[in-house]
């Protein structure tokens, strides 16, 4: 079934279509929630809330392309997660610091598998990974992140740099662990 037809059926509140849409995107959207939240249970709760919002506000969405619809759903999920993080006051964002440029070691990321990258991101502290997720994966600017998280532009930058540094360290450690095991 085409996604546009499915969306129209969901707009009519047909439960079968809603279930199909859920089955189609549940895992992908769950992984988004899991990138922002600490536990699987929290991510499930946010996925539930996000889908509820999708179904209830679907009448406001005008279908143009499949990618636009997927992006719309992702945005809803991210917003739900951020709301939840704000509720729990999980941001421990440090005061504005001088943002140091992190020197990138060439090709270090490309050596990792997708699952390993995901695991590294989720292993970072909430503050780091929220900014990292928003900037690197979702594609927000620092100003947008600052507006969303109600922090300064500089704090967003510093958080991102710290996240990059941490990620590199994690990758290095992981590589060392792998090389030791290989010997």
């Amino acid at each position, binding site marked *: 079934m085409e996604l546009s037809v499915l969306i129209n059926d969901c707009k009519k509140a047909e439960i079968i279509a809603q279930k199909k849409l859920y089955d189609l995107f549940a895992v992908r959207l*769950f992984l988004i929630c899991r990138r922002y939240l600490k536990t699987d249970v929290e991510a*499930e709760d946010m996925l539930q809330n996000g889908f509820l919002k999708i179904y209830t506000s679907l009448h406001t969405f005008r279908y143009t392309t499949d990618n636009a619809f997927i992006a719309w759903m992702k945005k809803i999920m991210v917003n739900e997660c951020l709301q939840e993080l704000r509720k729990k006051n999980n941001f421990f964002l440090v005061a504005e610091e001088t943002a140091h440029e992190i020197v990138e070691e060439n090709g270090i990321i490309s050596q990792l598998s997708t699952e390993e990258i995901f695991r590294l991101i989720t292993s970072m502290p909430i503050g780091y990974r929220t900014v990292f997720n928003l900037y690197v994966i979702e594609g927000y600017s620092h100003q947008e992140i600052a507006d969303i998280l109600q922090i300064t532009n500089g704090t967003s930058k510093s958080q991102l740099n710290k996240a*990059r540094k941490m990620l590199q360290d994690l990758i290095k450690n992981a590589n060392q662990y792998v090389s030791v095991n290989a010997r």
Partner: protein
Amino acid sequence: MPTSMSQLMQDKIIQSAIEGLEHLPADIHFNSHKTWAELSTQLPLKKGSVKYWQYAAVFIVLILTTFFLLEHKSEQKQSISKSSQPYKKSSIEELKTIIPEKIQLREVVTHSSQMKKEPPVNTDSILKDIVITSVEVPTPIEATDPTTSTIQQVSETNQTAILTVQKASPKKYRIVHLNELTPFSISTEEAKMLSKNELKKIIPKTDLSETQDAVELPAKQFLFFKKTPLINHTITISDN
């Protein structure tokens, strides 16, 4: 390559890797069914579906009501058919409890002797043809209900039967029992010589009812001659 460019490249790699991830990593657990089960309970119902449920509820209520009524009726029928005994006074007492109050029997003759002579009555038909209980009334009953015609027909039939008996009886000879006969033999010649009055003197009087008892008529045996005292008053079953 400038640092920013290399960072940009790195970001692109990470972004495409994460967005391309469509299956759960090994240490991540997601209970899709549970989440959907909880989600589906919170989903707003379709407008049409609310109406559908309302109609369904009404339909179910109607079915249940019909079923209950049918069951109630069948129970009543069963209880009546259980008591399919000859129609006696005692059975009337039982029927009093079985027959619904709505059915009011206005005129029912309850004379015991007449009741006993009734053929066995199927109690299933009592409810419908309850007027048959007044069959033995030899004279027409003034009935106020629509069953009058039935009563009249039956009572007329009785009268006909009685007339048949009365007409038939004079034609028959009286029966003399052997122990009542006198020693001398009555030959046909001697009998011819005797007049009717003399014969009457010789032959002791016999009870008319006895002679009539021996007579077999085509009419039904229960329509008999001993005129039982009529009960002019009528009572209802409920009064009984």
